[in-house]
């Protein structure tokens, strides 16, 4: 077990390095970052200034050296500064990270609350109307494009009915858990949770069906244990393993998949920051966001492996 985890840990670090290296290389190939300072039609820079900028940004060095220098800076906690506004990258990302993580957690909670009970209901009442509704939802949930669902939610609940706002995430200064703040989360988190809940539903349903068909549930039934107790105590706790382990992956997907939903809802998070950074070719931000996303992904994968072994003692690596 320990050997396996150590191996996975180093493989994870390798993944992060490779992912950032690829994006680092690509962002250099994407065009001269100096164009940010001297946009066509802008004021321009003198040749001396250009040379100084190049040296400052290390653009005069070979690509590999640039990457290695970036890594050594990273090891010292120096993520560099954004190109145009010259703000610390750590600060910019820190500001935006909160919004993305909050939205991720909200959508994850919503998806769990929507998906897992529906999955149980669908499995317990197999063949009933509820089951067909549940299975229908599982299919529809994965077929709606998130960005379109988001747009439709905006159209219906914001533009037509004027019930819910979107566009920011409320005030960050006052007490957080107020309706004024939370209502900004409803539309975007529902748009994200819609698809994730369908995944939960599928997994819970199939796990639940399998467990309900097992010997120990039959034994409990023949002993005369009540239906409620069988479902929640005997079956549900065992059926929880697949959805629980997948939930970490879903969580990671919600955070890294924030690019689309943040664009639709103008959510001030990392996803939109990254899209902006790509458009501006602001490579310090871009590489840092990719680093963040890749790290989240690798950590979550590692966590899933550990969780798997903890929940299900039969699994040994």
């Amino acid at each position, binding site marked *: 077990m320990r050997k396996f985890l150590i191996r996975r840990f180093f493989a994870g670090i390798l993944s992060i390095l490779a992912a950032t290296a690829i994006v680092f290389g690509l962002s250099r*190939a994407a065009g001269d970052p100096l164009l940010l300072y001297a946009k066509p039609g802008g004021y321009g820079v003198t040749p001396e200034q250009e040379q100084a900028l190049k040296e400052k940004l290390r653009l005069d060095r070979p690509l590999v050296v640039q990457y290695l220098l970036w890594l050594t800076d990273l090891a010292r906690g120096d993520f560099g500064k954004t190109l145009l506004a010259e703000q610390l990258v750590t600060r910019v990302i820190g500001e935006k990270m909160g919004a993305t993580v909050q939205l991720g957690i909200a959508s994850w909670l919503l998806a769990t609350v929507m998906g897992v009970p529906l999955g149980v209901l669908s499995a317990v009442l197999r063949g009933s109307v509820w089951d067909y509704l549940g299975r229908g939802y599982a*299919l529809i949930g*994965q077929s709606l494009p998130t960005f379109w669902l988001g*747009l*439709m939610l905006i159209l219906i609940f914001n533009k037509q009915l004027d019930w819910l706002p979107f566009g920011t995430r409320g005030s960050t200064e006052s007490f957080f858990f107020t309706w004024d703040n939370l209502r900004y989360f409803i539309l975007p988190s529902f748009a994200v949770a819609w698809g994730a809940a369908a995944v939960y539903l599928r997994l819970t349903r199939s796990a639940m069906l399998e467990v309900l068909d097992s010997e120990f549930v039959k034994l409990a039934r023949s002993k005369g244990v009540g239906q409620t107790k069988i479902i929640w105590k005997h079956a549900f706790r065992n059926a929880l393993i697949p959805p629980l382990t997948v939930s970490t992956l879903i969580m990671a997907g919600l955070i890294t998949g924030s690019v689309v939903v943040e664009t639709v809802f103008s959510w001030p998070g990392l996803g939109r920051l990254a*899209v902006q950074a790509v458009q501006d070719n602001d490579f310090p931000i871009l590489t840092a966001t*990719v680093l963040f996303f890749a790290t989240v992904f690798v950590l979550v994968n590692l966590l899933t492996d550990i969780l798997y072994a903890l929940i299900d003692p039969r699994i040994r690596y």
Partner: protein
Amino acid sequence: MASETRTEETTALQGAAAPTQRVFRLSPGYIWYALRRWPIIPALIMVVLVVTGVFADQLAPYDEIEQDIRFRNAPPRIFGWNSEYWENQDYSQAMFRAEESVGKNPSNRFILGADHVGRDVLSRIIHGARISLVVTSVALFSGLILGVTIGVISGYYGGVVDEILMRMVDVWYAIPFLLLAMVAVIIFEASLNLIIVLLILLAWSGYVRNLRGEVLSLKERDFVASARVTGASTFRIIFKHLLPGLINTIFVIASLRVGQLILAEASLSFLGAGIPGPTPAWGVLIAEGREYVESAWWQTVFPGTAIFLVVLAFNFLGDWVRDRLDPRLRQLD
């Protein structure tokens, strides 16, 4: 799910007709049974998609690129909606008369409304079907070949090759795909070919781990050993002895993958990293209509419905194929 299909069958048969009576009558019970037993509606949607994709030029009522600013954001005329709008526009009456005089049928125009520069939304959706069809099928098959090759090689050879290939897959999974795609678009400029390449990059990874696992267990089996003893080449073992056993898995993964690819293409186009305008990909239509979602909902609602129905059909078929061919893969997603 095997037992479940069986119960469905029996209940449905009881509802339809006695099992002894094997006459195919179109009783309501039989139709209900058939609809549940076979993916008839999804298959219909797919046939419609393929037909509109192939015959887009013939089917589209109007040119999909020609702009007519007089009709910007003109509302849909389907079922005689908005007849007030259309009758009060002098220019539209004049133009329709002009079209009629040259033998065209103007009643087909703007059935689903017009977009922000007066292009016919229905025609753009129909041409978008062709793009979805081409992009998805090319990406699906190329990704399949790439993924299967890597998976089989990784499983068959093992050792260092396996280690390198599997780490490659790990790295690939850790890269945020959408960001990579957006950077790539800035470097190479958005084009149909680029989006196909990007989708291939998305499509291949699903096959590798599953097929590697299957090959690992298959290659230890007796029939592979005896093939090797009789002097079969590696090439022959892989193609004659291993691949036939993998076809089911490949088919199941591929059929579950189609929907994801369509969604990914639409998302990329929506983010501006996909197919460049004025080519009417469905994602592009939604992105263009986004600003007018309040005043001209038809520009986003109809293309979105098209994406939804097609993805739904493919997902349904994928589930169906999986239940048929390989119930073990049920938890794949």
